[in-house]
């Protein structure tokens, strides 16, 4: 087995944004083929970390490396988001409401340079893979929450990225739909050998999908590593609470 190779790296990243600073001296590595959860309370800066990694926001201080190359530095984006081989599913999904499902996915392949027919074929394949092929002609506003999630996932996967960023995509879904989606996402990303970075405040989601986690507290990465290590020595309140619940559930099951 080969050791994980660093794919994305934040080095001493700070982000100051009025009226308060968002990130302080954040250092964090996203390894190739590893599924990592960025876990923390609401407003702690975890989504901002994802945006900085994606190149949607430039850090005020510090650097971001992608595949060992400088991608962002203080106040500037060196490698544009579409050149980082990433795809992202947003919390509000970011589906373009005026375009039907097929066009949403097809337009996501805009930069691929593929011929029109091939783009269409690939979009349809991604929609079928996510189980929403029959909704291709519908507008996003006419779909249920779960169906919209699947369309957003299809748009992300159709681009054949190396890394998939998931920014709390399961928030607001009922338990059954969330469980179905988590299972499907896990199967899809494993089958495609994708690196995953999931932002969430729910340790259960993080635990279900990811093997590693980074715990963010007040704009800092407080702990980072495989789940086993984190759970054996939880520093943060969120991990301690999760471990306590996990142990209680396990004890009840016994």
């Amino acid at each position, binding site marked *: 087995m080969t050791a994980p190779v660093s794919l994305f790296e934040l080095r001493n990243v700070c982000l100051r944004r009025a009226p308060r600073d968002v990130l302080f001296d954040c250092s964090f590595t996203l390894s190739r083929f590893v599924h990592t959860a960025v876990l923390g309370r609401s407003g702690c800066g975890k989504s901002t970390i994802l*945006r900085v990694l*994606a*190149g*949607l926001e430039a850090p005020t201080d510090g650097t971001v490396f992608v595949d060992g190359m400088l991608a962002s530095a203080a106040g500037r*984006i060196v490698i*544009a*988001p*579409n050149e980082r081989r*990433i*795809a*992202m599913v*947003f*919390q*509000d*999904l*970011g*589906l*373009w*409401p*005026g*375009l039907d499902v097929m*066009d949403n996915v097809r*337009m*996501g*392949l*805009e*930069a*691929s340079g593929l011929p029109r027919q091939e783009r269409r074929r690939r979009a349809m394949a991604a929609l079928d893979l996510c189980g929403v092929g029959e909704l291709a002609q519908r507008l996003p506003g006419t779909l249920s929450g779960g169906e919209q999630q699947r369309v957003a996932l299809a*748009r992300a996967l159709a*681009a054949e990225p190396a890394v998939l960023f998931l920014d709390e995509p399961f928030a607001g879904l009922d338990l059954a739909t969330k469980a179905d989606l988590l299972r499907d996402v896990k199967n899809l990303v494993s089958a495609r050998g994708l690196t995953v970075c999931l932002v969430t405040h729910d340790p259960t989601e993080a635990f279900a999908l990811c093997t590693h986690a980074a715990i963010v507290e007040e704009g800092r990465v407080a702990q980072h590593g495989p789940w086993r290590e984190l759970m054996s020595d939880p520093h943060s309140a969120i991990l301690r609470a999760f471990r306590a619940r996990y142990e209680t559930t396990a004890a009840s099951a016994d």
Partner: protein
Amino acid sequence: MVSVMFLEQPGRWRVITTGALLALIALPVLPLGWAAVDVPTAEVGQAFWQGLATSARIAVVGAVLGLAIGLPVGVGTALAPFPGRRVLLAAIGLPLVAPSFLWAIGWSTLAAHHAIAQAFTTGVSGCVLIAATTTTALVVFASYAATLELSRSQIDAALLSGSEGAVLRRACRNAVLPAGFAAVLGGVMTLSDPGAGQILGAHTAAAEIMTAFAVRYDIALAATQCLILAAIVAAIALPLAWIAGPRLAEAVLARQLAPPPRRGRSTTSLMVASMASMYVLLIVAPPIVGLFVPLVRGGGSGSIGVPALGPAADDHLELVLLGALATAARTALNTMIYAAGAAALAVLVGSAIALAVGRNSSLRTWAMTVGIVVFSWPSFAGALGVARVATAAPSLLDVLLRSRFTVCAVLASHFVPVATAFALRAAGTIAPSWTYAAAIHGVTLPRYLRMVLWPAVRPSVSLAFALVALLASADAGSVLLLHPPGEASLPLAIFTVMANAPEVAVASLCLIYLLVTVAILAAVVGLGVEHET
């Protein structure tokens, strides 16, 4: 190639661009400052100062009346459903989009034929009536919008704590601030309105300015008077806008709340329906009826404000009507060009302001504040400023300073705030994630604008275009000052002939104008319904 990300990125360019665009819309008014150098304040004239006092009286009484009538009607209409609600709202809004002189002409002709109307439709009381009509419309819409902002849970909570009366009281308390603000804005706009005073024989400040440039051709005096009026209006509107600006900037953003539940048919809905219908029947409809009176009675020999001396011969009436139709046909193209040109420019600049403001809340507040002040200024202030420059500029610049484009540009500068409010609201419906997704997938800026943004903002832009076109088409002062020879608009034609032409001719022209306005307003209401759907 510019990336789509620039749409979401903060930066100094936003402040600079927003500042430059806001300065641009105030630019035509700036030359009025020269006037103060040419004509000392002492020479402005006693009549103007007296007119100012009269205007203030009209504005205050109009605002109070508008608030008293508009608040319950606006809140009640939003809360209680009744058949024909939209039609009644459109009828209440009609005085906002048709020029005030048209209503004054309507009341004036009615008063000439019916003694009952004479007592309260002439002089200052007539002006108060017309000011209250405009202000009521503003207050109704402000209260209506404020009540629609209440969430379903807020309404349910009020209902649990009392009866329907409690809901109405809670909704009125919520709407009283925006309604009060709308009433003051209506009052301030009344200060700048020359139409009613000129026709109904009240010496208002704006009517004095109009007389200075339209009758005495003294641009310098008119510019000085206009500068004084603009300064007074700005002194009232600026602090008001500064206080209300943040709330308006917040309110202008679209809500994602569940709409308030429409209460079933009840005593409240019956009362509201009766009140709104009575208002339309007693205040909005009579001047329209007044415009029909000369046609029915054949009052061909009298002019506006003077009763007809006797019935005109049928053939004379026919000739007058044909003449009115010919005038309308002659001026139709120019009216459309001025309206559409001003609307296109206003929407363009308004959209650019919204784009520059982005998600910066303090810039949004600034845009709303400056917009309110500019919109409160007399509509002809910009035209007077440009005319002031034109009088000093060499004649070869007339092509630039007295052209159709100049008319459109000056009208647009006055109505940009309306387009900006719509554009800011439309921009508020755009999620940042749309742009982020486009950036990650490498969607080009032109394609993103065409495929994603344009479909999202199209309804708002269309509404803003139609509304600005309506408002701009109603203007006579700016067109009078800046139009090239022989290129008058329909309102200007009415304004020019109303003192001398037979009553029936003026009334016919007014009715033609009103008919077109109602048709466009119906289309706007239709667009609004489609947008809501």
